[in-house]
């Protein structure tokens, strides 16, 4: 999608530089925060099920841990690069700070395509990834979590490997574990639900009732499915979703009026969020090119797939009716597109706020795991909602007071908090 030459880390550094300038940070602080504290890149040789050996590249980047142990996902994606990981780690630092969670930011992954790996091969990748990083990870150091194309079972394999190597039970080592095996109820829904909690507050601010509001969503993975479900429970209608089609190697958008049926659609979706195109057509969905999700005549757009999706090239296709863009994915909007969207008066709920439900619930999971005492779902989601809503109101109030866009306000709050922590520790 898009022809802009895109590098997530360049975007992340641009956002940081702009914020640092606005905050008037001193040079050492800028230097410290615009790059990761630590980076690890390593190779993982893996014997495949057919007997051959393939070499995969693994990553772990700790951007900053001034406010607490690192926290960040592990993604399995064929296009993974160190720059994407750096950007994600940096965004995670800001995200935790914005939500006022006592954690730092990190990220990691393996450049691979799980579509073409057996479960045993994926398990071996997980175990090898942990082995390489055994001294760099831990509940007091850096805590991994699931991300794109990794899930609860991957986290459990990683935990098992970590505990085997350490010779002790350490449930707080990792989050996103299966419920009953150290996972938290509500974790699966957290990112999608958190996004809708924030969206609800944004609609209140705009004086738009959620009941009757319409939305179009990019992606139909975990985040998107739960966001759609809760949005519809609140009276909203989602008319279009899009996703990647592995077989055709293109993305498609699936449209239905008056609304998509999330339950039926989920039943024909694979575990990577790919909808079966033929079955969707049989269910009466209009199958459109992937980019069509962006040009729907709706009130709300929710990019909930990957980075770099709303670009200067496709931003003109956004209809005049759109009032809100809620960024479920990390970095879905390029800097150029962001400028245009701002000029059009669309309220953007930036990624570090909109999708922070996941890391917030990860934090809750880690707290529970460290105590080995688990909360009920009402408690998890109640705390999540209050945390998210408080953060939204903080950003909104700051944006209004300082006459900033929501994204700039969110970054300003977050970067200021991390910078202060570095100063308090006398790092700078």
């Amino acid at each position: 999608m898009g022809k802009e030459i895109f590098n997530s880390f360049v975007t992340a550094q641009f956002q940081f530089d702009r914020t640092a300038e606005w905050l008037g940070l001193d040079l050492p602080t800028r230097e410290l925060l615009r790059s990761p504290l630590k980076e690890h890149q390593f190779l993982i040789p893996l014997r495949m099920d057919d007997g051959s050996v393939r070499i995969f590249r693994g990553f772990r980047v700790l951007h900053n841990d001034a406010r607490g142990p690192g926290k960040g996902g592990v993604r399995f994606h064929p296009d993974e690069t160190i720059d994407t990981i750096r950007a994600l780690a940096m965004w995670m630092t800001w995200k935790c700070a914005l939500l006022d969670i006592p954690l730092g930011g990190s990220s990691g992954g393996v450049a691979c395509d799980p579509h073409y790996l057996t479960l045993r091969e994926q398990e071996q990748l997980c175990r090898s990834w942990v082995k390489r990083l055994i001294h760099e990870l831990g509940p007091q150091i850096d805590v991994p979590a699931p991300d794109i194309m990794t899930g609860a079972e991957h986290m459990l394999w990683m935990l098992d490997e970590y505990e085997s190597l350490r010779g002790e039970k350490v449930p707080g080592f990792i989050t996103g574990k299966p419920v009953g095996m150290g996972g938290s109820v509500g974790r699966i829904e957290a990112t999608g639900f958190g996004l809708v909690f924030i969206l609800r507050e944004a609609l209140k601010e705009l004086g738009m009732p959620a009941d009757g509001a319409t939305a179009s969503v990019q992606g139909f993975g975990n985040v998107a499915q739960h966001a759609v479900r809760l949005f519809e429970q609140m009276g909203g209608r989602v008319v279009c979703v899009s996703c990647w089609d592995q077989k055709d190697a293109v993305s498609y958008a699936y449209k239905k009026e008056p609304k998509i049926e999330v339950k039926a659609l989920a039943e024909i979706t694979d575990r990577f969020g790919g909808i079966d195109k033929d079955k969707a057509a049989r269910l009466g969905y209009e199958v459109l090119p992937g980019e069509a999700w962006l040009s729907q005549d709706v009130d709300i757009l929710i990019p909930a797939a990957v980075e770099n999706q709303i670009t200067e090239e496709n931003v003109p296709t956004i209809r005049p009716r759109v009032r809100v863009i809620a960024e479920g994915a990390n970095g879905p909007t390029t800097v150029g597109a962001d400028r245009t969207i701002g000029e059009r008066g669309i309220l953007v709920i930036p990624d570090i706020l909109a999708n922070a439900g996941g890391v917030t619930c990860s934090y809750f999971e880690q707290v529970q795991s460290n105590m080995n005492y688990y909360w009920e779902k009402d408690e998890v989601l109640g705390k999540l909602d209050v945390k998210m809503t408080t953060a939204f109101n903080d950003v909104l109030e700051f944006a209004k007071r300082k006459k900033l866009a929501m994204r700039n306000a969110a970054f300003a709050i977050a970067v200021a908090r991390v910078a202060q922590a570095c100063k308090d520790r006398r790092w700078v």
Partner: protein
Amino acid sequence: MGLILPARPSLALFDRRFFTGKEKFTAIGGGDIGGKAQGLALMRDILESRLVERFRPQIEINIPTLTVITTDLFDVFMEQNGLYDLALSSFRDDLIAGAFQKADLPAQLVGDLRALITQVQTPLAVRSSSRLEDAMFEPFASVYATKMIPNNQMSPDSRFKKLVEAVKFIYASTFFKDAKNYIRATKHTTADEKMAVIIQEVVGVRHGHRFYPHISGVARSYNFYPLGHAKPSDGIIDLALGLGKAIVDDGIAWSYSPAYPRANPPYNTLADLLTQTQSEFWAINMGWPAEFNPIKETEYMMKFNLGDAEKDGVLQFLASTYRAQDDKIVYGVAEKGPRVIDFAPILKFDLLPLNAMLQELLKLCEDTLGRTVEIEFALTLDERRGTPARFGFLQVRPMVVSSALVTISEEELTGENVLLASQSALGNGVLDNILDIVYVKPEKFNVHYSEAIASELEKLNHWLVTFDSPYLLIGLGRWGTSDPQAGIPVNFGQICGAKVIIESALPETSSMLSQGSHFFHNITSFRVFYFSVGAEDPYPIDWGWISRQPVIQETDYVRHVRLSSPLKIKVDGTTSRGVIHHD
């Protein structure tokens, strides 16, 4: 037809500031707010514009701060947890309540509850407000649960947990057996029912580990049992110390006509007065509960005796004292002796214009709802001077009063085919479709077995309701009493298929009906005929004739007979005469 209310009065959305927000009456969700909340919403502005200023500064009148969880969230709760199969089954209440406790509240609700609980540390009442409650011929009084929670734990996690448990318990009570039986007696089905939940500040004052209002009350604008010079349209008011549970469930209260507030209730002797007035009161227990039990309605409610209230210093405006040496009641609590909760300083010495205010309030509610009404309220007094008082308006509900013209002559009360007659019958109209009679066997009746009798009646009632057979019910002692020694402690759901109820007084007790209770509200609103037959009355029950009728079912204490031709039952509401003829 019933009162036409707007589907959803305009309410502000809950903005996560319970006490400090601009709006004191808010909603969480976009659905219906249920009958109870609708009644309050309807009266909100009218109270403000027509009543509040009139009684300031002596009485501060308001609707205690509340937020309503609307019915759409109940729908989400039921569907996302897949609870309907279980809820509509015949499982025991505790199993249903337990399953509801394990279910998850909707994600869009819990954040608001969490925010509410974070800033509020005073007791909360979590009350039902069901959709069918706005069907005005079906009052649903006391059918669903109310849970009081102290909400004083240090940890917001603990307070949140108790609030969540209470909301789920109210949801579960939609499907309890009594509620299902009750709905079966209406034209609705349980599947039609949707529950909204009111979370409301409790009006009261804390004294150590007790929290309670100084006065709770139920006022009705129509009195089915006017005494002395009082007229039915004068209405009747019941007052009690502590939470209103004493009135609505126990039926123990100081009852008086608002036209004659200084008149005592009709007790035969002062000894009667002492035994029949309140000796205990309900309060919210702010300490450790006797047991942690989220599916028990009274988990945090406790009864205390009058000595506790006296220690709390609250009786001076509420009580008189019995002086044994000259067998007199003296006003106030200056002397030692048994206390009588008669509200004398307020009703007899006008410490507070409560009675005048209640009269105006009843009139205002009648005018607004276009029919006779029942209201519930709670009041706290300034503990040093009595005034100013805070009056919390808790509920308004229409009453049903039949206007069909029935006359019964003196001669009709006697004769060979009279099964029984009464000079104090409740209701108005004619019934000629009753073939079944369920009666407590007089020869087996003993107050020690009254709870077992209630249980047997419930089973027979269920059977008859299932087969859509309305029946005549005859028993000894008070119906609907909470005191097993005074009669049969049924709730209305346990006998809801009865269309005619006969109360044959126990020889050794007063025959006063407990009309202050919700039990009697249901009886009148469901147009159940109610006959009171005293032991010395001139028109006794013809037990001989009944015993000759063919028996359909029989348990230890109860018998069910079926007649070959229907009874003819008439009640004249203007004279309170009633008679039942058989062929």
